[in-house]
């Protein structure tokens, strides 16, 4: 019996090897074409993944990836007992939950309002204007924010009428999050509404006609037709948003925060940047980054599973 099995195995192996050979002969040109692409992914995507091993080592540039000594979970233990651990974890979760609550629904509401417009010209103008911020670089957006909220900035002066102190708003830990979230909505509301608008145009007109005949008002139609039809898109966008939760827009935070606002603005990804690239704690910051990547991955995986179960729409 075992002889027969192993024989079958050899046969299978041979056929597989033959298959590989035949395939390579047939598709040689395709594989040759793919070499630069494979090289890119091997070096710049899988290279860093392999480089994550330094999270379990004491990496020094002199010894390199391979020859630095293993230290097991030391850096993770240090991170979990880090004085700042609780702070950056809370900040990360707070910022991403606030973003989900405020920035996520805004484009959906905008899309619904635009789709209710009668004048097509006006609708197009609103779209063009609200898409604008998407094309402005983070650096410039943060530059504008810094200008407008500086000690003599227009917004600071305006809020002065309501008794706000005339000082640089970004130095105030209480104002950092509102500025971050509101400017985030300003940046994304238009562009993110496109996907919902296209989903809205895909809804069958007959549904609305039938509802009108049955005497359903516009609000009733919104609840019973529009929202159910949008739910698939909303769920997909929600999965994507949750997956990005732990990669909160660190570019914007890096540009906006300063030591006075670290207590509310420091998140995991900015901490990785400061510890690693400014203080050269390579292994420690790689460990923090790995923690971040794993949590992100688990989040996407779980939300995806959940949505598959509940609504049947999923990413994979």
């Amino acid at each position, binding site marked *: 019996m075992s002889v027969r099995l192993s024989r079958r195995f050899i046969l299978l192996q041979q056929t597989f090897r033959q298959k*590989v050979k035949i*395939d390579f002969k047939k598709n040689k040109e*395709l*594989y040759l*074409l*793919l070499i630069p*692409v494979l090289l890119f*992914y091997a*070096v*710049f*995507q*899988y*290279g*860093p*993944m*392999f*480089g*994550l091993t*330094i999270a379990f080592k004491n*990496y020094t540039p002199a010894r*390199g990836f391979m020859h630095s000594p293993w230290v097991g979970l030391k850096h993770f233990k240090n991170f979990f007992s880090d004085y700042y651990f609780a702070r950056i974890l809370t900040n990360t979760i707070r910022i991403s939950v606030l973003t989900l609550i405020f920035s996520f629904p805004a484009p959906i509401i*905008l899309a619904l*309002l635009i789709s*209710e*417009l009668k004048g097509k010209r*006006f609708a197009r103008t*609103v779209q063009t*204007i*609200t*898409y*604008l*911020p998407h*094309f402005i*670089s*983070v*650096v*410039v957006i943060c*530059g*504008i924010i810094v*200008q*407008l909220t500086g000690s003599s900035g*227009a917004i600071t002066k*305006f809020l002065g009428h309501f008794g706000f102190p005339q000082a640089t708003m970004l130095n105030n830990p209480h104002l950092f999050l509102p500025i971050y979230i509101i400017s985030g909505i*300003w940046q994304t509301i*238009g562009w993110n509404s496109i996907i919902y608008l*296209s989903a809205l145009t895909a809804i069958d007109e007959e549904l609305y006609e039938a509802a009108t005949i049955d005497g359903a008002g516009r609000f009733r139609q919104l609840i019973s037709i529009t929202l159910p039809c949008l739910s698939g898109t909303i769920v*997909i966008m929600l999965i994507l948003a949750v997956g990005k939760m732990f990669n909160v827009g660190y*570019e914007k935070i*890096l*540009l906006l925060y300063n030591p006075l606002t670290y207590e509310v603005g420091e998140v995991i990804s900015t901490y*990785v*940047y400061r510890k*690693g*690239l400014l203080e050269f704690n*390579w292994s420690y*910051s*790689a460990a923090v980054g790995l923690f971040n*990547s794993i949590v992100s*991955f688990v989040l*996407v995986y779980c939300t995806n599973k959940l949505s598959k179960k509940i609504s049947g729409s999923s990413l994979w």
Partner: protein
Amino acid sequence: MIKTTPGEKIFNVFNVLVLTALALVILVPLLNVLFASFSDPVLVMKHEGLMLHPYGFTGAAYKAVAKDPNILTGYRNTLFVVVVGTSLNILLTVIGAYVLSRKNVLWNPLITMLIVFTMYFQGGTIPFYLTVRAVGLDGSIWSLIIPTAMNTFNLIVMRTAMASVPDSLSESAMIDGASHTRILFSIMVPLCQATIAVIVLYYAVTNWNAWFNAMIFLRDKKLYPLQLILREILIQDDTTMMTAGAEGDLGMISETIKYATIVVATAPILCIYPLLQRYFVKGVMIGAVKG
């Protein structure tokens, strides 16, 4: 649809008002920057609230910006990265998408899976930095091009577009003896023009706006792209290069210089944007179809 109830009428008016307000909220800060850049620095400092027109029209800030050598080299470096980087981006994306869209290729499913996996799990900032350094790209302008040579999302979108081209076209070319390279550039590329245009635009905007990699990889200021120069001027408040030769109150003109820099760096993109808007929007839709 037949008759509008009073409730609906009120809603329609309210809707137009809300959307007008939103458009203003988005537009006014941008216009404020534009108007302030043309205004007299002294009046800008004194001004209360947002500016709805220039105060004391002057081009002094722009003259100061034009004199700054850093802005000029920044512009040049950014143009290089946008032109060379985007060309490489689209070349690799088109090739990768073509190969991965072919059927009956043994290793394609596995390779696709490995590539898609990188969308959900990455090594992170530090290992990425160390990898680029190990390859020897740090300190070179190529560090802004090669490590970001491909974007997986764009690759998948491109692959979907190529997979939807009927097989019969490439098969008949195959029978006529055309190579894959030939099929790719003479059949696929012309047929997928619309998608390619969208993806080129995406890559170009990303390259124009990128700054983080430049900040961590470059040390020589002569190689800095525009965005990194902007960061020094706008965020780190360094206008010494430009106020050096300016007459009048230095502290005051440095404010309008910042506004002028923003305009100079953003105008190119915002000017071409309305012309290309429909392509960009189409891109979002293509991505959505893939879901």
